[in-house]
């Protein structure tokens, strides 16, 4: 269930639980303490009051017995006056006891005391009268009965006193019991508060502090730091850094947008240019073919022939520029199929045979085994190879050798690959222009378009491969093409 609750809800619930447990615990303790004290106070005061009353009753009774005995001994009427005072004290004690009596048993005992005392008082009055009349013998005989009655009353008073002592003991016991209950309740409240606090602490650590620490650790440059001190401060710093990054990204995005607009404009210009180039090529081809036709029928002197040849060559050059430009402007679109690079090499050499012968170049294929098939556009690969072959032919000029070495290799980062190493015996590429050979429109030849190697590089890149220039001892220009033998997607 916890998984469905949000962090905010969990923290709120735990805080509410913690506050609730504390409040309920404190309020209950206060109430319980107050009620216990109140109960104890009532019970104790009532019990003590009743005990004092019982004590007073006993004292008054004993005093009455003493004054009666003194009277019997010396016949002094003064003792009877004192006896009356204690009779009054007994009645007051009885009233207090009756007022404080709450149980039926107390009331019964008090009733017995009252009844016995009345009987005792009547019998004692009879004895006093006998003594006053001088009938001491009859009075003494009757006195024994009064004494018995006194013992009965005294026993009831003792019983009443015992009841009050028991009552006080019970109040004590109830107080102790309530104290134990309160302690148990407090213990439960403390236990619940500790659990809520622990859960809250765990939640804050797990869901807030630890993520904060991780975020703070991510902040800054360099490797992760072990201690981040104040996570919130570190996070604040990180946030400031992120804001700066956002500003930077925003700025770069703006620049990218401007570049994109510029690129779109350039793409449009390129598209228009390609259209223009395509339109130019048609009449240009016709002109070239007509020139060849004209050449057959004209009888030209040396100067006219030179002019004618220059015109033919320039038209041919124009045609090459337009053709290369169109190829360069072609949108990247591969028509892939399973094909072998060895077959591509054979077919391209077959197509280029006429050109190779016209340049007096001998192509030598170094192949141990036919290369495994790969997913590629064979026409584009032919185009790539043709560009390198033409480049080599033009570089060698007046004959030479072109070595095409086929190999399978496991290239780091690309896995199993088919590779082609194409080397010629020409003058090679000077080191100062080597880094620029794949740039579009860069050419070291006077009549070059500067697009041949750029197109070749682009084709290999579109296939997920690499084309790079290499230096090989005893060779002219050397190009190394790597094509991954990836499975069909």
């Amino acid at each position, binding site marked *: 269930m916890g998984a469905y609750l949000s962090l905010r809800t969990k923290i709120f619930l735990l805080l509410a639980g913690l506050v609730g447990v504390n409040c309920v615990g404190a309020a209950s303790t206060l109430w319980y303490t107050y009620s216990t004290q109140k109960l104890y106070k009532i019970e104790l005061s009532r019990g003590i009051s009743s005990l004092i009353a019982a004590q007073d009753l006993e004292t008054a009774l004993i005093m009455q017995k003493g004054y009666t005995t003194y009277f019997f001994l010396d016949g002094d009427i003064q003792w009877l006056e004192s006896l009356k005072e204690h009779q009054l004290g007994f009645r007051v004690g009885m009233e207090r006891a009756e007022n404080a009596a709450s149980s039926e048993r107390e009331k019964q005992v008090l009733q017995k005391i009252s009844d016995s005392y009345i009987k005792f008082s009547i019998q004692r009055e009879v004895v006093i009268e006998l003594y006053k009349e001088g009938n001491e013998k009859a009075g003494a005989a009757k006195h024994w009965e009064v004494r018995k009655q006194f013992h009965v009353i005294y026993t009831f008073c003792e019983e009443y006193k015992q009841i009050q002592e028991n009552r006080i003991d019970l109040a004590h016991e109830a107080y102790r019991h309530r104290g134990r209950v309160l302690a148990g309740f407090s213990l439960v409240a403390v236990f619940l508060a500790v659990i809520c606090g622990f859960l809250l602490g765990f939640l804050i650590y797990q869901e807030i502090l630890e993520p904060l620490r991780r975020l703070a650790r991510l902040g800054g440059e360099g490797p992760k730091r072990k201690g981040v001190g104040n996570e919130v401060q570190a996070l604040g710093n990180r946030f400031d850094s992120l804001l700066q990054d956002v500003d930077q990204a925003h700025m770069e995005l703006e620049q990218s947008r401007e570049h994109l607009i510029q690129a779109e404009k350039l793409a449009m210009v390129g598209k228009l240019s390609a259209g223009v180039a395509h339109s130019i090529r048609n009449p240009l081809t016709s002109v070239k*073919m007509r020139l060849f036709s004209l050449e057959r029928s004209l009888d030209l002197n040396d100067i006219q022939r030179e002019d004618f040849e220059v015109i033919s060559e320039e038209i041919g050059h124009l045609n090459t520029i337009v053709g*290369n430009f169109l190829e360069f402007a072609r949108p990247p679109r591969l028509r892939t199929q399973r094909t072998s690079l060895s077959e591509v090499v054979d077919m391209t050499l077959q197509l280029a045979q006429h050109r190779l012968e016209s340049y007096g170049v001998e192509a030598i294929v170094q192949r141990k085994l036919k290369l495994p098939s790969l997913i590629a556009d064979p026409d584009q690969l032919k185009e790539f190879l043709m560009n390198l072959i033409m480049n080599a032919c033009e570089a060698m000029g007046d004959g030479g050798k072109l070595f095409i070495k086929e190999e399978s290799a496991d290239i780091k980062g690309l896995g199993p690959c088919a590779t082609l190493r194409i080397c010629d015996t020409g003058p090679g590429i000077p080191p100062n222009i080597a880094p620029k050979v794949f740039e579009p429109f860069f050419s070291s030849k006077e009549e070059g378009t500067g697009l041949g190697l750029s197109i070749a590089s682009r084709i290999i890149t579109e296939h997920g491969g690499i084309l790079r220039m290499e230096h090989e001892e005893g060779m002219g220009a050397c190009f190394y093409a790597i094509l991954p033998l990836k499975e069909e997607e």
Partner: protein
Amino acid sequence: MLEPEITICVADPNPRVRELLRREFSSLGCTVILARTSQEVVEACLSSSPPDLVVVDPELSCADSDPILTRISMFMPKLPVVLHAFPGEALNHPAAHKAAAILEKGESTNRLKDVVFRILNERDVVTRTNKWKRKDITAE
């Protein structure tokens, strides 16, 4: 009895090129059918005197999405077709494998005529018609 003639269909979007090739092949005694569109090529192929060979530019306007070579091979699968295309495009043409030969446009027409002769010779057309001799080309 009339001697059978070699008929060549020249299909090119450029009228100047078409005219040049017509003139070149006519000078060798061939009958030349000119076609501006792929539809005209198909019509020529389906006519009562179909061509013995077609010289075609793959850029020829096509009514549907099928390349011209596909359409020709559909109607006349045995008809030899010479692809006469701009440099680069000939190699990349998807139906290039169906062509009997691929030649770059803009070169001397001698090479085109040489290739056409070789193909027709291989298919026994030249021998059968006895109209086109090797010397007709090499003499120029």
